[in-house]
């Protein structure tokens, strides 16, 4: 990782944590001024490349030199706002940066299809605000600042989801419902932060953690804990709080779904980990109780209930959306183990899941470009007309099930090892059984793609179609990553291990 850390001159590298958020925020205004969609996309593309570059630099710096604390405006924390990057959020930052970059590549052909020309530049502007918000949540070390960035990303997310209305008006109601639930979640979170502020008099997360450790916990901090868990749980689509997600993913433009599925819930989940492990501590009795009785239990329930719901979906993207909630269940289970190994497995699954879902939604987007695919049955025979896309789809799908030779196997393997170490045999059984459920819903789609006759129009069999090159590049890279990281898992394992250790406070 040394080479990443040394890419930038020292002066610029020092400000990299701030630039990661400032660049997309400023670029959002520039994109809004662009005369057409193509120029807007160019702005988004340049921004996303810069963000990915800076995010990787920050990751390199953190892995080589340790914690970065950037004082915004030169004010000393805890009075000023601190951008605090340790291995945990550096990994998330790099994930959001890279996935954002790949998704923007995919956006050019996909949005040309999904969104009216005159709205495209504004759409990219809203997307950049979302990106800035997500990066801000990841990098900020200030609890209230996290709320503000959470809302910056959420409010712009509502608008870009609603842009799906050009294809299906249900995108509007989906965005509205997400707005209501997302705002309730954010408000719960801010109530929790308020209670923490009452109890500690500080908003800096590291400072709060220290004060809590000294003065111990009381009813106020317990209330804060409950509010924060519910608030962030809503944003992260934790099991009983996930109702906004399936419709939002199903009716948003394809590009938005691919981007959100691989970043947004991940970032909210990161914030949850940050609060559970760094601000509160797993050693505290009520936090530990919540791990065993809330996160682990609800995680397992999510794995089953949402996998079942996925099996019975007819809409392909809705199916994958339910599967996403089930996959969040795996992460909750890993987190609920409360051990370094469990958290590491959960984080590894978080990274891997974003690789799989990114590739799957991009492949669905590529199918939709040519055949307007929405339902599972529309996928029939596309393996014959679009074999390359169908292959990427299959690889990512198998990875979702956790078949060996794909990264999905890695993270489930680590989850099982962590469960065994904790002595949770039932969790191992649940992991294997729910993977079988995943096999059913993924298998149904893959069989439809490969086994059925090629789509025909008025008796004429459709000729082979090629997806645009801008779809192939990100989709192919992600599908390749799904296989590559199985054979060379050390990189992702190293990242998740460093992240889990950072979350636990031992650097």
């Amino acid at each position, binding site marked *: 990782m040394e080479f990443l850390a040394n890419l930038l001159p020292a002066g610029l590298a020092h400000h990299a944590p701030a630039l990661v958020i400032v660049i997309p925020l400023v670029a959002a205004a520039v994109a809004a001024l662009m005369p057409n969609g193509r120029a807007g996309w160019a702005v988004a593309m340049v921004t996303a490349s810069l963000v990915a570059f800076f995010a990787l630099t920050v990751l390199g710096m953190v892995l080589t030199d340790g914690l970065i604390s950037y004082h915004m405006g030169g004010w000393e924390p805890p*009075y000023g706002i601190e951008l605090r990057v340790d291995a945990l959020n550096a990994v998330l930052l790099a994930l959001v940066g890279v996935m954002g970059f790949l998704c923007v590549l995919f956006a050019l052909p996909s949005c040309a299809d999904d969104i009216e020309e005159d709205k495209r530049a504004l759409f990219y502007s809203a997307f950049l605000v979302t990106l800035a918000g997500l990066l801000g949540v990841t990098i900020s070390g200030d609890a*209230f600042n996290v*709320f*503000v960035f959470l*809302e910056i990303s959420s*409010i712009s997310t*509502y*608008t870009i989801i*609603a842009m799906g*209305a050009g294809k299906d*008006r*249900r995108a*509007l*109601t989906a*965005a*509205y419902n997400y*707005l*209501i639930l997302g*705002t*309730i979640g*954010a*408000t719960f979170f*801010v*109530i929790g932060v*308020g209670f923490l*502020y*009452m109890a500690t008099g500080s*908003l800096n997360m590291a400072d709060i953690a220290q004060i809590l450790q000294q003065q111990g916990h009381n009813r106020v901090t317990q209330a804060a804990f409950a509010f924060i868990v519910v608030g962030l749980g809503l944003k992260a689509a934790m099991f009983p709080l996930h109702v906004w997600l399936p419709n939002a993913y199903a009716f948003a433009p394809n590009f938005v779904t691919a981007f959100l599925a691989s970043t947004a819930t991940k970032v909210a989940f990161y914030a949850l980990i940050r609060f559970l492990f760094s601000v509160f501590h797993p050693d505290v009795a009520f936090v530990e109780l919540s791990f065993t009785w809330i996160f682990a239990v609800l995680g397992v329930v999510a794995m089953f209930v949402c996998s079942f719901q996925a099996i019975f979906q007819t809409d392909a993207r809705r199916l994958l959306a339910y599967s996403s909630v089930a996959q969040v269940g795996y992460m909750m289970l890993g987190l609920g183990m409360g051990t370094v190994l469990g958290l590491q497995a959960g984080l590894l699954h978080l990274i891997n899941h974003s690789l799989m879902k990114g590739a799957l939604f991009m492949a669905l987007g590529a199918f939709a470009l040519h055949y307007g695919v929405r339902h599972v049955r529309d996928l029939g025979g596309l393996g014959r007309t679009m074999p390359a896309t169908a292959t990427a789809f299959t690889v990512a799908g198998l990875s979702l099930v956790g078949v060996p030779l794909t990264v999905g196997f890695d993270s489930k393997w680590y989850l099982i090892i962590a469960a065994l170490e904790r002595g949770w045999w039932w969790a191992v059984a649940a992991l294997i059984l729910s993977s079988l459920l995943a096999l059913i819903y993924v298998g149904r789609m893959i069989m439809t793609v490969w086994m059925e006759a090629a789509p025909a129009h008025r008796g004429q069999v459709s000729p082979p179609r090629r997806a645009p090159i801008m779809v192939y590049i990100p989709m192919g890279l992600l599908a390749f990553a799904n296989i590559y990281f199985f054979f060379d898992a050390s990189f992702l394992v190293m990242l998740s291990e460093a992240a889990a250790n950072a979350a636990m406070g031992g650097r």
Partner: protein
Amino acid sequence: MLDIILERFNYIPIIILMMTGLYVVIATGNLVKRLVGLSLFQTSVFLLYITIGKVFGGQPPILDGAHHGDDEGGHGAGYGAAGYGEAGDHGEGHGDDYAAGDAGDHGEAVADAAEHASDYAHGADAAHHASEVLYSNPLPHVLILTAIVVGVATLAVGLALVVRIREAYGTIEDDGLNAADYNRETGGGE
């Protein structure tokens, strides 16, 4: 029991507003009314933050050192401005500035006061002064200014969505929307 409640009287309206707002969000089927409930819910949280900033007997967190400074002319304006610059940083600035302004007002030891203002070497009496002045906590207000902006933005996006929903569906009642979607899934498109 009554004591406990009366001591925390400020929370009573907050809880009532919060629960009313949340109830409206859940209970109503009208999309605009639901946004009204949501705003109520958010506003109650603003109140929660504002009330925790109140310190009993505390003054508004505004420095009056600057006024004294203006009266004093050249010297005074100098340390008045310096006082403002320092104010945002930390509490000790208040004490120095206040003491300096005070001394200037009485017309004695002006040079001494200027020295105070310029290098902020504070003597025992300045520190004593600082402890006497009690200010309310301004931080929650600043936070809530931000939160209000967030609330306004949410409400604006929500209302814009309702307008678009009405254009697309011709209704803003939940029942009507569900019925329209259901008919389209089952009756229309196939």
